[in-house]
């Protein structure tokens, strides 16, 4: 650019130079600034790096410090945990040790017990075996004794029998010898007789032979003739036989034809039977259906009948109830009627009584009637009341009268009774009863003195009349 500057110096130097200078300065400044910036950036980078390094180192330091603190606290905690755990494990170990010891002891006990039991068992078994052996030996001894006895007995018997046999054999030998002797003698006799007999017989035999020869020739001739006749008869018979054979053959053929007919008939019979059985099965099925239907119908009828019966029973029950109720009602009505009739009768009687008594109490009633008549005109609705009052007054008067009459009657009856008692006693005193008459001292029978005793009614209080007073009345 200096060239350019040199070149531009000749031209508008001052403005261009100033501009150039300014530009150069600006450029320089820019370069300076750039350099400064670069230096700054480098410096900052270095610083940054250093700071980063420091930061890393510090971080590491922090981590270490943090870890050491953590370790310390953790170590403390862990130690505590360890102590606790070690204690628990020791306790568990102690427990297990004690368990193991107990088990050992139990095992020893059990072993001892089992050994004891085994020994006792062995001993018992040995004792039992010894007893068994003893018993066996005894039984065997017994058996052997028996066997010996039997053997001895059999030996004796054998000896006896053998001696017996020998004797018998000797006897038999003697007998045999004698018999043989006899046998020889007899045989000689027989031979002699036999030879004599044979000689005689032979001579006789020859004689007979000659005679027989003659006879035989004659018989031969006769027999030849007979044979010829027989041959003729035979031929006739063979002819007859052949005829018969033909006839039998015909008959056989006929029988074959008959057999065939019979077979066909049998087939028809079988088919008919099959149809019969099928129809029978059909019938039976139909029957079963019918019977089932019948059963159903029967059951239905039964059910209907039951229903009917139930309905009948219900109706009957209702009827009976109705009748009962109606009876009750009728009874009530009748009772009411009776009551009404009674009331009517009572009213009649009252009327009668009133009419009788009207003369006695006419004044009172006339006043009442007057009062009533006076009041009737003014008070009509109170008519019934007036009548009621009259009725009540009448009733009260009747009741009072009745009470008075009752009292009078009671008094009268009392007097009557007293008088009767007095009379009885008097009579008793006078007469002598039959019972006393039969006794020993009838003449001296003494009766009770006549007294009036009070009637045994607890309600009434009667005055007791003494004997003296009663006697006065009696006499």
């Amino acid at each position, binding site marked *: 650019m200096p060239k350019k500057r040199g070149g531009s110096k000749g031209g508008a130097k001052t403005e261009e130079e100033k501009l150039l200078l300014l530009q150069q300065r600006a450029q320089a400044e820019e370069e300076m600034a750039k350099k400064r910036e670069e230096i700054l950036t480098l410096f900052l980078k270095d610083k940054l790096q250093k700071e980063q390094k420091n930061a890393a180192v510090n971080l590491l330091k922090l981590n270490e410090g943090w870890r050491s603190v953590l370790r310390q606290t953790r170590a403390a905690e862990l130690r505590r945990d360890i102590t606790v755990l070690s204690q628990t494990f020791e306790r568990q170990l102690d427990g297990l040790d004690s368990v193991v010891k107990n088990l050992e002891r139990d095992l020893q006990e059990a072993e*001892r017990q089992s050994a*004891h039991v085994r*020994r*006792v068992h*062995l*001993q018992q078994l040995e004792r039992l075996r010894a007893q068994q052996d003893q018993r066996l030996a005894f039984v065997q001894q017994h058996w052997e004794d028996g066997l010996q006895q039997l053997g001895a007995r059999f030996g004796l018997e054998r000896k006896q029998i053998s001696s017996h046999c020998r004797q018998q054999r000797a006897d038999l030998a003697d007998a045999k010898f004698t018999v043989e002797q006899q046998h020889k003698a007899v045989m000689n006799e027989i031979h002699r007789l036999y030879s004599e007999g044979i000689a005689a017989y032979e001579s006789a035999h020859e004689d007979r032979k000659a005679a027989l020869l003659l006879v035989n020739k004659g018989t031969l001739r006769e027999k030849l003739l007979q044979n010829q006749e027989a041959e003729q008869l035979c031929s006739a018979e063979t002819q007859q036989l052949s005829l018969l054979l033909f006839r039998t053959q015909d008959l056989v053929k006929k029988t074959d034809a008959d057999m065939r007919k019979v077979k066909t008939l049998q087939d028809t019979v079988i088919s008919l039977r099959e149809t019969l059985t099928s129809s029978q099965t059909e019938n039976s099925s139909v029957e079963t259906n019918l019977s089932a239907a019948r059963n159903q119908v029967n059951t239905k009828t039964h059910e209907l009948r039951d229903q009917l019966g139930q309905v009948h029973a219900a109706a009957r029950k209702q009827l009976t109830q109705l009748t009962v109720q109606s009876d009750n009602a009728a009874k009530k009505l009748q009772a009411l009627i009776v009551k009404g009739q009674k009331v009517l009768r009572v009213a009649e009687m009252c009327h009668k009584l009133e009419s009788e008594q009207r003369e006695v109490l006419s004044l009172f009633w006339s006043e009442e009637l007057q009062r009533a008549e006076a009041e009737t005109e003014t008070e009509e609705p109170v008519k019934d009341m007036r009548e009621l009052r009259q009725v009540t007054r009448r009733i009260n008067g009747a009741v009072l009268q009745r009470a008075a009459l009752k009292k009078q009657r009671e008094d009268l009856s009392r007097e009557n009774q007293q008088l009767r008692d007095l009379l009885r006693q008097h009579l008793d005193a006078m007469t002598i009863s039959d019972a006393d008459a039969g006794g020993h001292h009838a003449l001296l029978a003494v009766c009770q003195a006549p007294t009036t005793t009070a009637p045994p009614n607890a309600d009434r209080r009667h005055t007791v009349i003494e004997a003296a007073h009663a006697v006065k009345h009696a006499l």
Partner: protein
Amino acid sequence: MRRSPYSPGANLNPVEDFRKMRRIIAEDPDWSLNIVPCLSKLCLQSIERNFEGKPIFEELTPIQKDFVQENLSTSLPLHVTANLISDGVYWKRCCEQRWDLCDVSHYGHSWKRMFFERHMETIIELFIPEVTETKTVLVMVPLCRNYVKRLDISQLLPPIKEPQNEEEEEFGLELASDNEYDRPSLDHFDFNILLDKLTKLEELHLVYRVKQCGMNFEWKMFEMTTRDCESLAKALKSCKTLKLLKLHQSHIEDEKCRLLVKDLLDHPSLRELDFSHNLIGDKGARAIGKLLNRSKLEILNLCDNEIRGLGAKAIAHALSKNSTLLSLNLRLNRLRDDGGQAIGKALLNNNTLLHLHLGGNELTGPTAVTLSKVLVQSNTLKSINLSCNNLCVDGGRALEEAMSHNTSVTECDIRLTEVDKQSVSFINQVVWANQSLEQKRHAQESKTK
């Protein structure tokens, strides 16, 4: 007597007539209408009634003695009857009245002996130390001394446990034991007071156990203590006629066994020793081995103990020098092969042993081989029992081979030994042949006699 309604001349059935005459029909079979008991019978009856006060028995004739024995009251005190009435119906009645089951053949067919032995046994079995007085035992001794030959005691009661301590000095007890104030002075019945006085005692069977203890069970009831052991040993030494001692199932260990054996050495009459079902080990076995040669033992039974190889070797050592032992039973111990072989080797030198029982000892083949050598050579061994050992086929074959040379063994038991069937059948055949030989020999001997 009511008059009979029939005329005297009528022909009546005499039974009916009697029934009409007398309505009481007697229950007593001896009663009879016609016979009035004779004076001698009445006298005998009065003798029976007053026997306790005035025992007259010796002066009677045998028939009279029988009559008296049949009717005499069985509840008479023993001090009157024991030495007076001889063996017979009276003792039979006593026994049957007191006990249900009476098997007199077990007691040599003597009712008197049965009665006294069982009586003594019950006294001892029910003896509670420190509660029962020893007088009850001692009182019986002079009465039964001549009749008791065997005592089979099946329980021995321990003292009742009391919280207080009571040290009483019982008669005849000087036990050399530590004087602890906790324990009573007696553990079980002390036999010292009894055994030397029973002059005819030949057999003693003891078990230290309690029957029917119910809920009061304690292991101590089934054990013998050391003091018991010492006192028993002394008692046994003092009894000079004892032939058989059976002390089983009493929890005897080595020390107790040695204590007992110490006092049994050179015993004049002991022939049979039975320590079965105890806990004797090797040391006890050694003591017993010593005993074998210093006494006249013929039968030794140590079954169901804990003897092992060493103990067996000790016994074998004694066997090889011994000439009296006839039967040895080492069943159900733990001999194993070394023990079995030791015994086998000892038997090669022994000529008297007749019966050997080694069943259930975990023996195997090598023992069978040793024993087969014995079988080949021996002509005295009669019965050998090797059952329940695992001899296997080889052992079986060795035995088979040996038996083919043997002529004296009449019983050879090899059941449950896993031996081959062929060997078993062969051995059985040889055994039967030997048995028939034996019978023939017996027959010849009896003929020559």
